[in-house]
């Protein structure tokens, strides 16, 4: 079952691959074709609605309705491009910064925000949405993706697992183990690194001496693909290509998407301590939404009415989310004991009874 692939094709391009540049012009440099107009419009719609979700979530932290929120503003192209490239049968393994991707995948936003709201569980049903729980430890989800993809392949399915990770997570040991094992097993996994420049406060230069993170692919025996992560069309195409490789049994792909985290790490972070405004401003000029909007308008695929309709959809959804999050959450302390094991142990049953007694005494 040895697959011999010329590793020459595994090196990333010198310049990041790009289909629609920062000014909204289609480039001719890349051999890949632009996605169909329906896909481009969907990318724009999901990014617009996603950005509105993101600002709403940040606002909810200020109102005390969310314990914490790590914003993905600026990373909309990655969040949306990956989801539109996936089939329903594929599995997504997200991190805590990928709420927008989950909402784009069709998961109820209230469920997506359950953990960040302060509950103990992930909110949604991983099997219903083929989406792992949002992973808080860094890089550990990469291995879950490899295991699941391998099991799917053993079962004869053509399911691909897509795992999201950040630039900081590439320094973690689990990323190394996952890339290596995925390559050895030829597991159908797509590793999408959203390189947003910082791991909280630590810049990429303090994470790696590699020319790019995509260069790491060849060392493991898989293609490393470097893309403009603010070009939603490019993210969609690159992830689609990598998923197709996986489906054909050609193994894993590492994609590095260059993007930028416009907001601080979370609402609790102060980004002014480690980066200056000029840097943020320079990235605002490469905004993923405005470039696709310009392209779509130039091509006559989107007009002011269309843009307004999408904005309205974002507002409606944000209002619905606000209303849902303003209702006090219903929690049941008894459930803390219910799922530690598939059957509660005698000790847990007795602790649950103890807590129930305490609560009954307080209530009386």
């Amino acid at each position: 079952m040895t697959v011999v692939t010329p590793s020459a094709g595994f090196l990333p391009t010198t310049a990041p691959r790009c289909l629609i540049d920062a000014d909204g012009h289609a480039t001719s440099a890349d051999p890949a074709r632009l996605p169909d107009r329906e896909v481009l419009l969907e990318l724009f719609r999901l990014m617009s609605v996603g950005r509105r979700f993101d600002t709403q979530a940040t606002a909810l932290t200020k109102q005390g309705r969310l314990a914490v929120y790590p914003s993905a503003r600026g990373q909309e192209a990655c969040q949306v491009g990956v989801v539109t490239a996936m089939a329903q049968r594929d599995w997504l393994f997200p991190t805590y910064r990928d709420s927008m991707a989950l909402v784009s995948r069709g998961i109820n936003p209230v469920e997506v925000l359950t953990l960040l709201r302060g509950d103990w569980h992930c909110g949604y049903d991983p099997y219903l949405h083929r989406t792992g729980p949002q992973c808080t430890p860094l890089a550990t989800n990469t291995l879950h993706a490899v295991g699941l993809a391998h099991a799917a392949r053993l079962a004869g399915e053509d399911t691909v697992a897509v795992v999201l990770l950040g630039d900081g997570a590439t320094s973690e040991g689990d990323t190394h183990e996952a890339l290596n094992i995925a390559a050895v097993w030829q597991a159908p996994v797509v590793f999408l690194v959203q390189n947003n420049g910082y791991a909280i406060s630590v810049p990429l230069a303090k994470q790696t001496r590699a020319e790019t993170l995509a260069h790491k692919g060849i060392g493991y025996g898989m293609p490393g693909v470097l893309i403009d992560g603010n070009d939603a069309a490019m993210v969609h195409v690159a992830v689609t290509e990598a998923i197709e490789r996986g489906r054909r049994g050609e193994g894993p792909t590492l994609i590095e998407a260059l993007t930028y985290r416009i907001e601080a790490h979370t609402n609790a972070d102060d980004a002014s301590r480690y980066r200056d405004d000029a840097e943020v401003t320079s990235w605002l000029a490469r905004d993923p939404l405005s470039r696709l909007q310009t392209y779509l308008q130039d091509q006559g695929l989107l007009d002011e009415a269309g843009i307004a309709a999408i904005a309205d959809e974002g507002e409606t959804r944000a209002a619905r989310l606000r209303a849902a999050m303003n209702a006090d959450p219903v929690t049941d302390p008894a459930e803390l004991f219910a799922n530690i094991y598939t059957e509660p142990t005698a000790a847990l049953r007795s602790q649950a009874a103890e807590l129930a007694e305490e609560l009954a005494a307080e209530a009386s």
Partner: protein
Amino acid sequence: MTAVAEKAEKLGDLTMAGALNRALADELRADDRVLVYGEDVAALGGVFRVTDGLAAEFGERRVFDSPLAESGIVGTAIGMAMHGLRPVVEMQFDAFAYPAFEQITSHLAKLHNRTRGRITLPVVIRIPYGGGIGGVEHHCDSSEAYWVSTPGLKVVAPGTASDAYWLLRQAIACDDPVIFLEPKRRYWAKEEISAEPAAQFHQALVRRAGDDVTLIGYGSMVPTLLETADAAAQDGISAEVIDLRSLSPFDDQTVVASVRRTGRAVVVHEASGFAGFGAEIAARLTEQCFHQLHAPIGRVTGFDIPYPPPMLEKHHLPSVDRILDAVDRLQFDDTVVLPSTPAGTDPNA
């Protein structure tokens, strides 16, 4: 939970390693969702030969060598279990499991709860543990305290070959993640494998009945406790021996019933004593047996030192003599005045 096998064809006499091998083979045969992987488990059959012949019989899709990556082994097992498989993975030696600590404690133990019961992870992590085989550093640790203090994990340790066979089959059939501690110094001890399990998965067993004192242990200490009971009998002390088998969940019922009757107990393990598993057992017994106790619960454990080198390990491991001494200290004669707190225990001194 899959149906636990209740009977086996006549297996005859097997070593513990042989019994574990047979349990893996029987589960691989009974359930095609079971797969076995780890370092050197395929062609070599494992460094202790526990997986000998399995790759040849079941093929490389079900029994295979992984890269040398313990976190990777456990992390991928989680993903496989999410897809419906029942992986049984091997950590080659106890201390080699530490790179997998985060995957085990932060994910394997928690995902069932994190997903409100939607994800179940029937993963068995086999860990050869403990010393007594002349192993060099990092090859003889007893890591049970880490695992038992992690909610969501089940932890079992067989003390006999027959239990090894049945406990491993029960562990593989269990829908919760199980840390399966194999006492490596007992791998070569041979006995007849019983035709059915000696007890439920999480039940402790009275290995020898007695009236004067209860000796409590698990895994590698079980034969040592039985030897101690023999020696105590010659001194006129009737010792009951309890083999815990399951460290977590803990079978309070069996242990408490014994100690309430004997009024004295010694807890024994190879791992260091400070904040060790024995401390939990002593605390539980004090809480539940206080009025029947004639003496404080005794503990005989490894010293609070890194596992010693092969030339010195005999001084570290709980021996029959050391356990007998602990039994002697249980105030059978209440005219003896015990020494007060030993000198030199002030941490600031």
